[in-house]
C-alpha cells in the first residue's frame, strides 16, 4: 500500500511539470481498464476512434491488471489524489462505488451538467437496473455486460447417447444427463466457472429467491445475506453430492475452470457468456449454448448481469477536477453509447448488446442464424418478459468482493467434506454479514 502511495507521488511530481507546456493541447482523460487482450485492445481502439473524431479531448486508455487489481489501483490512486477520470469497474464493485460519496461523479449528474443525452430506456432493463439508484437515476456508464450460460460438448452428448440438440432445462434432467455422460466414460460431466457468481448469484435470481435483504441491498446499507435459504441449501447440497459421485468437478475460484471446457475435459460448463470467443477459437469439437437450468416446480425468470461499467471519479479526497475534464468524460460516454459502437462490441466479443435496439438490429441482420446460440445470453436476460423482481435486479452490496471470496471459501470447505452445505451457507451468511456491517459503519458518514 505504502509503495503504491509513493509511486503515485512520484507520478504526481512528473505530472506537475507537464501543464506548462500543455497550452493548446487537448484535455487529457485518463481511462483505466481491466481487460486483457484481445478485448483490451478492442476497447483501446474505441478510445482512439474517439480521439480522432474530435480534437478537444484525448482519452488515454491504459490496462491496470485484472478487474480487482484495477479497482484497488483506482482506489489507491484516489487516496493519493491521482485517480483516473474514468475507471472500468466490475459489477461486484458496484455497491462499493455507489457508497463512495464524493469519490465518484454520478453519471446522471455528469450528463445533465454537460447537456449530454443518452436514452437509457433503450438499455436492457437488467443492465439499467444494475447501475442505477432505486429512483432510476444512472450512477455509472454501462458498457461490457455479460451473463452466465451453459456451454456443452455435443460430441460428448452423442457418445453418451444423448440428444445433442436439446439440452436439459432442469437440474433434475441435467443430473440424469450427467449420469449418462459419466456412464459414457466422461471423467468430468459438469464443472462451473465463477462458482459464486453462477451457482449462487445467478441461481438466486433465476429462482427468484433473495440473495440479501433490502432487495439484494438496493434498499439500503443495512442489508443482510439470505443465502442460507432452502433452495440454495438444496442446490449446494446437490453440487457437493454430485462432486462426490463424480458428476461435477469443482474447478477452482473465479475463471479458473474456464480452461476445462475448450480442452474437452469437461462436457458441460456453467460460465460467462464472454467465454464464447475462447471456445470458438480453441474447441476441437461441436458445442452448443443453453440457458442456465432451474429446479422443477419453479418458473425461471431473468438472470443477472456480470461484466463491468465505467465510473467517473473525482481526483482525490482534497483535489478537484475542472469542468473541461468532466465535459470530456461526458463526450466520451456519448461516443460509447452510439448504437454502432454497441453493435460492434457485441458482435466482435460475445458480450451482450446492452441496447435493445441494437439487439433487434443484429437479430434482423441474421447474425444469430449464422452464429447459433449467440442470442441465448440475451434471451435468458429477458426471460420472464423483462419483468424483473427485486431478486433479479442485481446485487448492491458493499464489500461484495470480499463476500464473494467468503462464499467461495465456504463452498470449498463443503466440497472438501469439512462441513455440510447448510453449514457452509450459514457460515457464509455469518461472515458476510460482518463485512456488510463494517461497510455500513464505514460509510454511514459519507
Amino acid at each position, binding site marked *: 500500500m505504502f509503495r503504491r502511495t509513493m509511486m503515485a507521488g512520484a507520478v504526481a511530481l512528473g505530472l506537475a511539470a507537464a501543464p506548462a507546456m500543455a497550452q493548446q493541447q487537448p484535455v487529457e482523460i485518463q481511462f483505466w481498464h481491466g481487460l486483457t487482450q484481445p478485448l483490451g485492445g478492442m476497447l483501446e481502439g474505441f478510445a482512439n476512434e474517439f480521439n480522432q473524431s474530435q480534437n478537444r479531448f484525448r482519452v488515454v486508455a491504459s490496462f491496470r491488471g485484472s478487474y480487482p487489481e484495477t479497482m484497488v489501483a483506482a482506489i489507491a490512486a484516489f487516496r493519493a489524489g491521482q485517480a483516473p477520470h474514468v475507471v472500468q469497474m466490475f459489477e461486484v464493485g458496484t455497491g462499493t462505488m455507489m457508497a463512495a460519496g464524493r469519490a465518484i461523479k454520478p453519471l446522471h449528474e455528469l450528463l445533465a451538467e454537460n447537456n449530454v443525452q443518452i436514452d437509457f430506456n433503450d438499455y436492457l432493463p437488467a443492465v439499467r437496473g444494475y447501475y442505477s439508484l432505486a429512483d432510476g437515476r444512472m450512477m455509472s456508464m454501462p458498457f461490457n455486460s455479460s451473463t452466465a450460460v451453459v456451454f456443452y460438448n455435443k460430441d460428448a452428448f452423442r457418445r453418451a447417447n444423448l440428444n445433442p440438440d436439446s439440452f436439459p432445462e432442469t437440474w433434475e434432467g441435467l443430473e440424469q444427463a450427467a449420469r449418462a455422460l459419466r456412464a459414457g466414460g466422461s471423467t468430468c460431466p459438469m464443472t462451473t466457472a465463477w462458482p459464486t457468481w453462477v451457482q449462487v448469484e445467478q441461481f438466486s435470481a433465476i429462482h427468484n429467491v433473495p440473495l440479501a435483504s433490502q432487495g439484494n441491498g438496493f434498499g439500503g446499507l443495512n442489508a443482510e445475506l439470505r443465502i442460507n435459504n432452502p433452495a440454495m441449501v438444496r442446490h449446494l447440497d446437490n453440487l457437493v453430492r454430485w462432486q462426490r459421485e463424480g458428476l461435477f468437478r469443482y*474447478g477452482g475460484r473465479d475463471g479458473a475452470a474456464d480452461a476445462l471446457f475448450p480442452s474437452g475435459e469437461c462436457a458441460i460448463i456453467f460460465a460467462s457468456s464472454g467465454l464464447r470467443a475462447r471456445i470458438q477459437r480453441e474447441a476441437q469439437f461441436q458445442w452448443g449454448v443453453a440457458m442456465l437450468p432451474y429446479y422443477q416446480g419453479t418458473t425461471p425468470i431473468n438472470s443477472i448481469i456480470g461484466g463491468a461499467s465505467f465510473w467517473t471519479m473525482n481526483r482525490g*479526497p482534497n483535489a478537484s477536477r475542472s469542468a473541461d475534464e468532466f465535459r470530456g468524460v461526458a463526450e466520451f460516454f456519448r461516443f460509447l453509447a452510439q448504437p454502432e459502437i454497441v453493435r460492434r462490441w457485441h458482435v466482435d466479443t460475445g458480450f451482450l448488446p446492452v441496447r435493445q435496439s441494437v439487439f433487434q438490429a443484429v437479430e434482423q441482420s441474421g447474425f444469430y442464424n449464422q452464429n447459433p446460440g449467440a442470442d441465448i445470453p440475451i434471451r435468458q436476460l429477458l426471460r420472464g418478459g423483462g419483468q424483473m423482481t427485486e431478486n433479479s435486479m442485481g446485487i448492491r452490496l458493499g464489500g461484495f468482493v*470480499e463476500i464473494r*471470496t467468503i462464499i467461495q471459501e465456504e463452498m*470449498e470447505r463443503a466440497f472438501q467434506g469439512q462441513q455440510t452445505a447448510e453449514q457452509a451457507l450459514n457460515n457464509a451468511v455469518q461472515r458476510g454479514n460482518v463485512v456488510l456491517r463494517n461497510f455500513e459503519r464505514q460509510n454511514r458518514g459519507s
Partner: protein
Amino acid sequence: MRKKVIFKGVALPYLLLMPQLLVTAVFFFWPAGQAIYGSFLREDAFGLSREFVGFENFQDVLSDPNYLSAVWNTVVFSSSVAVIALGAALFLAVQADKAIRGADAYKTMLIWPYAVAPAVAAVLWLFMFHPQIGLFGKLINGMGIRWDYKVNGDQAMLLVILAAAWKQVSYNFIFFLAGLQSIPRSVLEAAAIDGARPVRRFWTVIFPLLAPTSFFLLVVNIVYAFFDTFGIIHALTQGGPGKATETLIYKVYVDGVQNLNFGASAAQSVVLMAIVIALTAIQFRFIERKVHY
C-alpha cells in the same frame, strides 16, 4: 589489545552512517509507524471518513477464528518449510562435499533454483502438479490417488510447502557447504583413526561444528517462510481451498489489498511484527546459548 578508531568531532561519523540510517528510517521505521497508526483507525476504502477505534481492530482480529486458523497454518507451513529445506540442504551439502567426480557441476546446479523468482517457482510447480495439465499431477491421478490441490486443503498445503522449501534449499546448501569446508580435516581424520564410522563422525563431529551455520539458517528460513513465500502461495493456491493455505502474511494482503480493510490489515501487520520480534529474540536468547562458535 583492540585498536580503536577515533573520529575528531561527531559530524563525520554521523555523515558516514547517514545512508544506512536513512534507508532504515524510510523503508522500515516510517512504514512500521504508519502501520501502528493505521491499526487504531477504521476508515472506508476511499479514505473519506476515518474513525479512531482504539484497540477494536486488534480485538476483532484476535477473536476471528479465521485469524487463528491462519496462525496455525503459518506454524505448520513455516516449521515444515524450515525442516525440509534445512534437512535436504544438509544432506545434499554432505554429499557434494565428498570427493566425487563432477562435484562442481552438481554444486552449480544445486545453487540454480535460488535465482528463480518465487512466482516463477510456483508456476513451475503448478505445471508439474496441476491435476489436469501437470506431468506428475496426471501421473498421481493415474495411479488411482485423487490428487486435486484445488479441492483438497491438505494437498494444497503440501504443495506450497514443497515449492517453498525447494526454493530455499539452494540458499541453505551454499551455507552448509561453506560450513562443511571450514571444518578442519585434521579433526575428522583424528576421529577416523580413533575408529569412528562415517555416521558417527557426522553426528559427533561435523554436526556440532556446523551448529553456528545451522542456527543462522534456522533464523533465516523461518523469516523466509513467514515473509518471502507470499509469491508462491499467491501463484499456486491464493490461500485456498477454503482458507487451507492462508498464512499470516497472505491474510494481511487479502484483508488490506483485496478487501480494502486497512484497519484490520494494519492490526495484523503489527501483530506479525510483534511475533517476528519475539521469535527472533527467543532464538537469540535461548538457542544461541547452546550454540558453540
